[in-house]
């Protein structure tokens, strides 16, 4: 169990940030979602050992969140959302510096800094001053300093913010690679649901200081009944008629996707038969799941 907290409470003065949070996370990558002000950053800060909860307890990587905070901070890597760097240093010095502060011996920190900078794609630029770095490079640098001490738990706060499409792609691949190394647990907080869907196997949705939903993404999104998403090429209206005559319900969404609700007793092959009969080609066929966005909307309740 890499992370387990029970009944966490925390308030900033009169504002309640966390109101009884219970959470259990194991390996792999988990996504932390929630509207603004739901308590995500507060939860992250407590898990990082920054803050002590007013009530409740828990363990991160086996260390107590109240009494062993420095030990937690040794084994945890944090990639903050805001831009952060130190002017006047180059990437290697910067990364090694923070490695040292995490407790690495100086030479080891240096060696590891080079390695990690290559890994995140800053190898060529590692001797340049940070002041000359572009936004995308600064983002990778943040990831590098989070990885330099080989943490067992990684917190990433909006890891793809401000990156262009290439940058996003590359950072997402890096995170996938890291989280597939089975002994690093990754917790990602992000508003970009597409990213969470790509990387995470588990998801936690916070709302108003409580956990509104938690579980495997696959399970949370699966639908019990037969709903298929189709794209076809050909005479659509004829196809729809065929399907409807079989007892299916057909809806059309944006981007010309057909949502077909099939009664339980029907076989999916009948869709293909209907297609053949109406002379259309099925070009896209997927068993529908709740979109993460719908799941979010449903859980958070508003709207």
């Amino acid at each position, binding site marked *: 169990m890499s992370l387990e907290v029970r009944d966490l409470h925390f308030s*900033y003065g009169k504002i309640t*940030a966390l109101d009884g949070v219970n959470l259990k996370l194991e390996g792999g990558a988990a996504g932390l979602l929630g509207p603004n002000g739901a308590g995500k*950053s*507060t939860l992250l800060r407590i898990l*990082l050992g*920054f*803050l002590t909860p007013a009530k409740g307890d828990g363990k991160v990587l086996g260390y107590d969140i109240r009494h062993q905070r*420095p*030990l937690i*901070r*040794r084994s*945890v*890597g*944090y990639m*903050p959302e*805001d*831009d*952060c*760097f*130190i*002017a*006047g*240093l180059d990437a290697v*010095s910067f990364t090694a*510096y*923070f490695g*040292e*502060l*995490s*407790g*690495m*011996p*100086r030479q*080891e920190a240096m060696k*590891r800094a080079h*390695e990690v900078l290559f*890994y995140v794609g800053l190898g060529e630029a590692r001797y340049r001053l940070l002041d000359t770095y572009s936004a995308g490079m600064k983002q990778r640098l943040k990831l590098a*300093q989070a*990885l330099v*001490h*080989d943490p067992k738990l990684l917190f990433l706060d909006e890891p793809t913010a401000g990156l262009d499409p290439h940058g996003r792609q590359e950072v997402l691949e890096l995170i996938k*690679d*890291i989280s597939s*190394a089975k002994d*690093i647990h990754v917790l990602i907080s992000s508003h970009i649901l597409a990213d969470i869907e790509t990387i995470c196997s588990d998801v936690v949705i916070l709302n108003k200081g409580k956990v509104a939903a938690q579980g495997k993404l696959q399970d949370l999104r699966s639908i019990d009944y037969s709903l298929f998403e189709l794209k076809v090429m050909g005479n659509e209206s004829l196809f729809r008629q065929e399907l409807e005559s079989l007892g299916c319900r057909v809806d059309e969404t944006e981007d010309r996707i057909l949502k077909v609700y099939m009664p339980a007793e029907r076989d999916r092959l009948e869709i293909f038969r209907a297609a053949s009969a109406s002379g259309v080609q099925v070009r896209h066929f997927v068993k529908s799941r709740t979109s993460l966005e719908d799941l979010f909307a449903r859980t958070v309740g508003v709207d």
Partner: protein
Amino acid sequence: MATIREKGYSHWDGALVERKFPWWPITRTGIQLAFRRKHFKFFFSVSFLPAVVFLVGIYISERIEDFKFMIKDSENFIKINPAFFKTYFTNDFLLFMMVMLLVFSGAGLIADDLKHNALQLYFSRPIGKKDYFLGKAAVIFFFILALTLVPGLVLFFMKLVFSGNFKLLTGYPWLLPAIIGFSALLTVFFAFYTLLLSALSKNRRYVTILIFAIYVFSDVVYGITFGIFRSPYVALFSLKASFQQAGAVIFGQRLPYAYPGYLSFLVLFGICAVSAAVLHRRIRGIEVIE
């Protein structure tokens, strides 16, 4: 047989160490950054000028015979005694250069971290607030001690070497503690002073201005109020005056200003206390903000 290295993320198989001084990387980096600033090396060298001059003075004082042809009243020319040291430690030029160095090495110490949001990187490491402040303060310690304690000890030691005897030590046994004590006073005070100002703003330029302005302005205020009120107590407004007063007390010399010496100590410690309180609150505020 052959091996290849897999692409992708690799683990580090080293072990973390418990440092005796966990704040040391902060200090080392701070000193490095100071030296990288433009013109810093120049100013740093120039601030050793008084030390060099006084060192030459010590040399001359021992070899007075050789220089007799240059000086008329050789007996009273240079006496190496506590007054000599006090003059070195409280001379205007040296104090001013120290303030200059504070600007180079200290203005950005906390201000830059605030500006570039680096605090969250520091505090996600297993170091505490105390380590952070101590590490930053130690940067200032380094530079100020280099200008006070180090030259002080060198001058003391060189006098012993040149004169070939321990008269300085036996004649004034409290001189050495005085050197150490005054150096410590200046060092600690300047550390609090600089860190306080550096933590008040995100902009290094403002802090630079503040560091200078408060020092210079405090003296100006003294001058103006003295002109109006003619009371020696208004010298307490001036930081420079407090240094000189405190220096005179520590080196057992005549007080330059006509008020009890302990008041200067109170002013200096008072500022340190205020600084400590403000720093404590300011950094906590940042940690906790959403």
